[in-house]
């Protein structure tokens, strides 16, 4: 459909036989272009309707004040109100803290686990299944499960364990200083399986000659990991780091279910703030304005990251 408006080109095609033939609609159809388009169209429409259209709508909404009956253009007023909210700084800090901590814990752990599992010969399959198991549990279930683990009274799992050695009970999620680390532990537990599987697959593709050569040169296990494994994995490592950064920056489910952003907004993240604007205050303009800002920040972060690592990430 896209190219159907092209004029017939049969006559022109003969003029310069040396040049590459220009595609004609008929040729395009003959080559199966129409079939491709027919198969491609549902995907295109689905994306347009469920992904691109909402993005566009979000951009428009961020410049409007609406109750979905009467809509008013307000320019950048929504952005001004977002920036004036004292909770914004808290949310930015909480989100950054969460991201840094989640990456600091959640990035190296799967790599080490993958390397360990790759070393196992008989139990590799079993170990990777074990590592992947938490990912299979629906997020809400695993968060609720951990919420009961973190129960602050003596009945909580962690407090029961602490009780055996005469410690606690600790307040866990009720402790303003521990709430983010506690959520990071849960989030890492719930998601590291996917990273392990991906790293494991990459590890399997590293040629064994490299290790053999290193071994002949007398390299220790650590040196082999440092000089062979890591450089061979750097492409995937960089991509995973970027994905984790973007993913953890959008943390929502865990604080929403476990703490509701408390205590004292110490676990209120940016997405939770957006949620509150939209569904508690019914203020979609402000919610989309903050979403747009977050998207901009993430794009910027990704751009800087890609620029900074371009040279290193050759593969």
């Amino acid at each position, binding site marked *: 459909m896209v190219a159907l408006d092209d004029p017939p080109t049969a006559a022109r095609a003969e003029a310069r036989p040396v040049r590459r033939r220009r595609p004609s609609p008929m040729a395009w159809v003959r080559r199966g272009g129409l079939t491709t388009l027919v198969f491609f169209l549902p995907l295109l429409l689905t994306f347009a309707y469920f992904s691109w259209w909402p993005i566009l709508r979000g951009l428009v909404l961020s410049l409007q004040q609406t109750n979905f009956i009467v809509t008013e253009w307000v320019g950048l007023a929504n952005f001004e*109100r977002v920036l004036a909210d004292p909770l914004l700084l808290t949310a930015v800090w909480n989100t950054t803290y969460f991201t840094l901590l989640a990456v600091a814990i959640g990035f190296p752990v799967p790599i080490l686990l993958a390397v360990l599992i790759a070393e196992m010969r008989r139990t590799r399959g079993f170990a990777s299944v074990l590592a992947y198991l938490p990912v299979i549990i629906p997020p809400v279930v695993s968060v609720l499960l951990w919420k009961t683990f973190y129960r602050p*009274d003596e009945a909580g799992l962690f407090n029961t364990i602490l009780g055996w050695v005469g410690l606690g009970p600790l307040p866990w999620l*009720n*402790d303003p200083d521990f709430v983010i680390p506690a959520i990071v532990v849960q989030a890492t537990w719930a998601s590291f399986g996917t990273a392990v599987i991906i790293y494991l697959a990459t590890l399997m593709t590293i040629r064994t000659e490299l290790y053999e050569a290193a071994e002949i040169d007398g390299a220790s296990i650590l040196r082999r990991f440092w000089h062979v494994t890591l450089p061979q994995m750097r492409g995937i490592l960089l991509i995973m780091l970027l994905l984790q950064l973007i993913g953890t920056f959008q943390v929502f489910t865990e604080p929403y279910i*476990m703490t*509701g952003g408390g*205590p004292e907004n110490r676990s209120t993240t940016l997405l939770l703030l957006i949620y509150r604007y939209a569904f508690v205050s019914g203020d979609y303009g402000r919610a989309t304005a903050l979403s747009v800002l977050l998207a901009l920040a993430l794009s910027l972060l990704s751009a800087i990251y890609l620029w900074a690592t371009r040279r290193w990430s050759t593969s």
Partner: protein
Amino acid sequence: MRRRTRRAAPVALLGVAAMILSACSGGGSGDDPTEGASVDTDAPVTISVGGQPTTENPEQLADFERQVEDFTAEHPNITVEAEETLWEADTFQALLAGGTMPTVMQVPFTEIGALIERGQVADITDQMGESEVLQQLNPTVMDVVTDGDGRIYGVPIAAYTMGLLYNRALFEQAGLDPDDPPQTWEDVRTAAQAIEESTDAQGFGTMTLDNTGGWILTTMSYAFGSTMQSDDGATATLDNPATTEVLEFYRSLRWEDDSMGANFLLNYDDAVNAFAAGQMGMFVQGADNYSNMVVNRGMDPEDFGVAPLPQTDDGIGTLGGGTISIISPTASPEEIAAGLAWIEFKSFLQYTDEEVAVAAAEARIADGLAVGAPGLPVVNDEVYQQYHGWVESLINVPRENFELYLSTVEDLPLVPEPSVKAQELYATLDPVVQAVLTREDADIEQLLGDAQNTIQTALDAG
């Protein structure tokens, strides 16, 4: 040619987008209901109504379907399309945006203020005047759906006051008399200590998440003597001695008596489950929770106790709650009239027709639901007494356990919720309550001062 093909793709996309755009915007437009002066109540009209019981409740569903049939027989010009749509904070805006909000649906008391403020509910004042029964509603309850200019935006169909819920079994275990519930806050504190000492449960509790912390703090502030906002909604008054006193009360129970348990991140479900499971002795909550606790959460009917919200000498009353039938802001005057006719038929016929009252009560009993649970009548006293007489023999809840509440429910003044940005106020107060309960050194004065500034800024911003 290649260039043209490439350029054609975005154009095609834009075309698709424009098509979708026009398809979507169709639902948003609607007539201004205040415009049309004359309403033709005999013209054919179709209304959609939410709240149809789900198939797990066959008796209620059958009863509902019968009502739709009877209603249509009585009003042949009105077509009723029933759907199961219920109020959810996170789906309501989408219903409006998508133009799929039913003509009539139910919302809780806590939401109506914000809906009126945002213009997301129809003004039904003009059409209300046509109905006789709807003129006989309880005036205290009607305040909730009336704005400053006297315009009406909904019909309250069930109401309650916030009270002190207490577990009668725990009271007995702690050596307290369940028939003599605490009537002062000092009594509450003593009872909480007793429960804490002699049972495994925590004595007292309060919710702190999803705006419930601020909601209950506001309720308690009324009982201690202050509102949170000036009557015109222009000035925040939450930094006041009464609210400070409430927070001091929390602090004493939490840090001196240690009678409030260990978890201070409780949302509505957490608290209600803890209470129904016998892990919490007392908490402030809607007095209509009997069915919720007993039917939905398996509490022993004999254990459920409810007392009026204790008041200090300065106390100004209690907060109300309940369910309101609202009409879609996009409804035409004819649809509003038809919607009101449905609301009247569905929720108020039982107050004027004995047969309907008995049938509805019997359907509830067949479904294992409560008849005669404590609440606040939505109709005036005279009408209510008549209705009560009709269903008295069918009552299946131990009303003798709520004697004090039932005998005083009409006397305790009902103070409405803050009229402007109530939910934002509650959201701002949640962390204040959390701070007092999780930090022994929390500076109440500072916390309230900061919250006051935040809310005043929000009110000034309009």
